[in-house]
């Protein structure tokens, strides 16, 4: 997936589905071009259409799923921008730029262990589907704070999932990284499992440590505040092994070794 091959479009798209999934909001809109081009792990810059200036900027949102003409996102309303998007009703229009960024890279045939924390589970759905379509073995560890967030597990039906909650209200009690080491051993006749993770920074740091310790390759999708989403403003940087990296353009998915973890 060469960045030069990522077309993008700025579209005003009609919302056709808007429903609550536990603590999150699932919203789908019609965007054939984006649906056609989206690669797992890429993101959109999205806001409500209209000329009100607060919120001002679009928000980066992962692509949860695509289905023929439809693009679906899963929103955790943590602040004003996400709350406004989560309040979108059927027929409302969103302005969307995308798909953007470097998504998950997948080559080879290694079993895939997908690790999602909280709203970080969102891009794993399309990823799981795409990996499965390539014939790869897929297993998801989905971690949530409570039962309320864990409802989103239902979006992963058909995929092998383990649910972990911080309060033990559903599935295993603990952090999503707890069961990870147990999933990483190479099975006879198969390549070493590869990790794909998305979630809050502390979770990603734990995943990076475990991957290093267990000797598995790992890709992580990270977050940063963004303005342009296309590499123009240099605002979304994180510390990389050799200097700052732009999350929007160099990522949002990085190999764990490319990121500075302290």
């Amino acid at each position, binding site marked *: 997936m060469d*960045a*030069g*091959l*990522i*077309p*993008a479009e*700025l579209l005003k798209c009609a919302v056709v589905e808007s429903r609550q999934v536990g603590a999150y909001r699932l919203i789908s809109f019609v965007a054939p071009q984006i649906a056609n081009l989206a690669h797992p792990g890429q993101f959109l810059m999205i*806001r409500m259409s209209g*000329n009100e*200036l*607060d*919120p*001002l*900027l*679009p928000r980066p949102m992962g692509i949860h799923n695509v289905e023929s003409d439809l693009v679906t996102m899963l929103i955790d309303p943590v*602040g004003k*921008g996400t709350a406004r998007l989560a309040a979108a009703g059927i027929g409302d229009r969103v*302005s969307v*730029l995308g798909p*953007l960024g470097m998504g998950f890279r997948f080559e080879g045939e290694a079993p895939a262990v997908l690790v999602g924390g909280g709203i970080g589970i969102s891009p794993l759905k399309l990823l799981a589907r795409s990996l499965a379509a390539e014939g790869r073995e897929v297993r998801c560890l989905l971690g949530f704070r409570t039962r309320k967030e864990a409802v989103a597990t239902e979006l992963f039906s058909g995929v092998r999932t383990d649910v972990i909650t911080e309060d033990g209200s559903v599935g295993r009690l603990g952090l999503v990284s707890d069961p990870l080491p147990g999933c990483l051993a190479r099975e006879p006749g198969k390549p070493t499992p590869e990790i794909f993770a998305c979630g809050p920074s502390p979770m990603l740091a734990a995943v990076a440590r475990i991957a290093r310790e267990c000797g598995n390759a790992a890709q992580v999708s990270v977050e*940063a*505040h*963004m*303005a*342009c*989403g*296309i*590499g*123009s*403003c*240099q*605002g*979304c*940087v*994180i*510390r990389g092994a050799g*200097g*700052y990296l732009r999350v*929007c*353009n160099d990522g949002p998915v990085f190999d764990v070794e490319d990121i500075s973890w302290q």
Partner: protein
Amino acid sequence: MAVNLEIKLGPLELAHPIINASGTFDVLAADKALEEDLFVSFPFAAYIPKTVTLQPRAGNPPPRLQETAAGLLNSIGLANHGIEAFITEDLHRLESLPVPVIASIAGEETEDYGRCAAMLDSREEVAAIELNVSCPNVELDGRALGLDPEKTRQATVLARQATSKFLIVKLTPNVTDIIEVAAAAVDGGADCVSLINTVHGMALDRYSLKPVLGHVTGGLSGPAIKPVALRAVFLVSRELDVPVIGMGGVTTAQDALEFMAAGATAVAVGTASFRDPLAAAMAPELGRLINEHGIGSASELIGVAH
């Protein structure tokens, strides 16, 4: 009735008055990410790349961005790969742009402006030079050269001695008297002033209650500062005899109309490009509005509010 949108900015003949604001639109990055052929259908009438400095700069620690009410705080800190790399790597790629390129330079001391201007003077790809004396994100307390009229004059004098190119000085609004600083720039040899760079500001993290930006303070841009910018353009263009490039919160063609009425010869779009990458393409709508106001051309619009 078609309105003539062409304007003259010194020796530069622009197809229309809308250009980009330095640091908010990187055509090389955007061309890659958007895969529209930006080099063919370039929306702006001139292109100003991000400010470059003598030495490469990594920029400030993250986070570097925070949205505020109708505004954006940034503390990028002039991250750039240095003027040498700009000349050897970027300039020839920009050569194929269908519009003039205005190079933006900054320094830590007045002498740097002379040095950078000298390095660009012989470059044909560079149609004009903008001296950014106003970046609030270089020093911790937001102190920029441009806060001091005398240093502004000196930096301009040194650049003026080093180049015969059209010289623009970009000023900060964070001063008691912006007319005084603008006059100092003109006195130092500026052909044009650019108004405004970002307004000093700061935000706290909602949860930690510590400054959210890695650099603690930052520069405020976007619609929130439009009234501040419009006032600066109005006052300076009324007082001084050089053309003014207006910017600060320009989001719609109506905003551009107002900046020109306030006295701007060209109008730059910054933060609005983040909101909507198509904001850049506001020139046709500006033409429609000019026509609606019964004004014959873009150049006749300049300063009608005075």
